[in-house]
């Protein structure tokens, strides 16, 4: 069984296909509207075989697609204060949070995992877009800090795969501050001489794009991914003009010099492996700086 088949094991499928009818055999491509046999779509890593549209995938599937043999260990997300502002809109924030946790079985909108990628010990942090729009609050910020430190301890490259609407409004300015906190984490990683690779996926916007997502040493995006700072509607309302075709799509960003490459999902694992191979060959010339720990409990070695 190849890693490709393994990632589609029924248990994992059940985890994020719960919004679909359980016995559903066919799915419609949202781009070309063609019907696709469910199993074929999974085998194609949820890329439409007719038009090449890259459908959104959840964080766990993403990780199993990338790590060798689909095998990885996740780390427990560091605990952060819940509902620091006692935020209430039409709903209480803790209720929204519990709903998202119940629906996803995740603690927050990110998974931090480590394992081998092309034989290299690698740390990957992947956003879960279905968890409150992948929004970044304290938990996501702290998870990225932990991911960068785990990578430093393991002398491993860090790959971050955002899919996020931006900062989480319900944590107010404390979510805004995560833009700076995550940047500190990346700077520390960089000073340890380790590669920081970002794979931008659909959609990545707002405070996430304007911080850790746009400072990758290598910036990769999936085809057709929507990537931007401001939302298209906000821009239209501000300038009262129609937006150009393909605006804020990965290919558009590539043309404007904002990305290194746009990579098909089927080629992503191979591309990441090659990039890491090339970056990690020379002996590291790390400007290693000591930094105080924040009390996060991170395993120095991968857990079995």
């Amino acid at each position, binding site marked *: 069984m190849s890693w490709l088949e393994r990632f589609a094991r029924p248990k994992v499928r059940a985890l994020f296909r719960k919004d679909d009818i359980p016995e559903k055999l066919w799915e419609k491509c949202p781009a070309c509207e063609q019907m696709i046999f469910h199993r074929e779509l999974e085998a194609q890593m949820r890329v439409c075989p007719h038009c090449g549209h890259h459908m959104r995938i959840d964080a766990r599937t993403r990780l199993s697609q990338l790590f060798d043999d689909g095998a990885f260990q996740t780390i427990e997300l560091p605990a952060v204060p819940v509902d620091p502002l006692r935020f209430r809109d039409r709903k209480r924030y803790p209720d929204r949070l519990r709903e998202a946790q119940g629906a996803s079985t995740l603690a927050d909108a990110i998974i931090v995992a480590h394992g081998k990628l092309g034989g290299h010990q690698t740390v990957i942090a992947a956003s879960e877009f279905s968890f409150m729009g992948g929004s970044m609050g304290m938990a996501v910020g702290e998870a990225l800090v932990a991911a960068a430190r785990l990578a430093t301890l393991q002398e491993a490259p860090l790959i971050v795969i955002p899919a996020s609407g931006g900062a989480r409004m319900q944590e107010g300015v404390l979510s805004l501050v995560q833009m700076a906190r995550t940047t500190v984490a990346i700077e520390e990683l960089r000073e340890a001489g380790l590669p920081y690779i970002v794979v931008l996926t659909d959609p990545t916007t707002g405070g996430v794009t*304007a*911080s850790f997502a746009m400072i990758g040493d290598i910036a990769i995006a999936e085809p057709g991914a929507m990537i931007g700072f401001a939302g298209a509607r906000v821009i239209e309302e501000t300038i009262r003009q129609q937006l150009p075709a393909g605006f804020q799509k990965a290919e558009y960003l590539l043309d404007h010099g904002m990305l290194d490459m746009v990579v098909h999902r089927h080629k992503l694992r191979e591309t990441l492996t090659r990039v890491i191979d090339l970056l990690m060959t020379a002996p590291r010339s790390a400007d290693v700086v000591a930094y105080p720990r924040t009390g996060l409990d991170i395993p120095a070695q991968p857990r079995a």
Partner: protein
Amino acid sequence: MNSYLDFEKPIAEIEGKIRELRHLSGDGGLNIVEEVARLQGKVDRTLRQTYARLTPWQKALVARHPERPHCLDYVAALVQDFTPLAGDRKFGEDRAVIGGLGRFRGRAIMLIGQEKGRDTAERVTHNFGMPNPEGYRKAVRLMRLAERFGLPVVTLVDTPGAYPGIGAEERGQAEAIARSIETCLDLRVPIVSIVIGEGGSGGAIALATANKVLMLEHAIYSVISPEGCASILWRSAEHAQEAAEALKLTSEDLLKLGVIDEIIGEPLGGAHRAPADAISSVGEALERSLSELRGVAGGDLRSRRRQKVLAIGQKTLG
């Protein structure tokens, strides 16, 4: 004082009476002095009462008051030999971001600030204080220049947010903001940021990641504008007042949360009533912060700044 905010109506009425009395008396006959003094006392009392319990939404209105002192007012009053420096050396000059060398209390500094503009023409020139990527790239360039010459960086934050436009996106607004934050966190010279009006989201934090973050009493600093938050979470911008409450965007809340280090008190009735007083308080607070950081080694300035940022979140309102 020309423009009154809605909640300042009672004050507007009393001050209207004072003006009327002065106008009627013409030559300033003695008989009105007592009445004017009485009315003035009433104005002060009303102002004190109103401004002591401004709601977060009212603070947002005060923070955006058209007569509130702006970046260039602070520069004019506090910075000698101001020498504006223009351009990002990549694409253009962004007049939403003022930058330049100057002398503050005898010592050279690099000043970077967002300017909203006063009248319509100025507002257009300064793009209402909404920077394009060039503004942030200019800021990065000037911060690096300051670092090379050992000059402290002072930033004045006052923006509704980074500009949402086609060109801004094409030229990498997100990347420009991210690099500005990154540079703030890397710099080996002191950085002091002062939120003087509106600290609008990513467009603000790009310049407000500092060793010391000060904030004027009635300024606001938030992840999203109350209107934007209301239209998303309440599905209508009409709920902006509730959103302003929920976002905890006042200086008092931000101090409790450890996001800012100090509140700079405003004159009675807000900075727009007595701009010179507000500017002089900012000058005093800035001098205190700069002198605290003077003599600290570059590497320490950087690591302390990073540790400070990482420590945010340990204090909550919950």
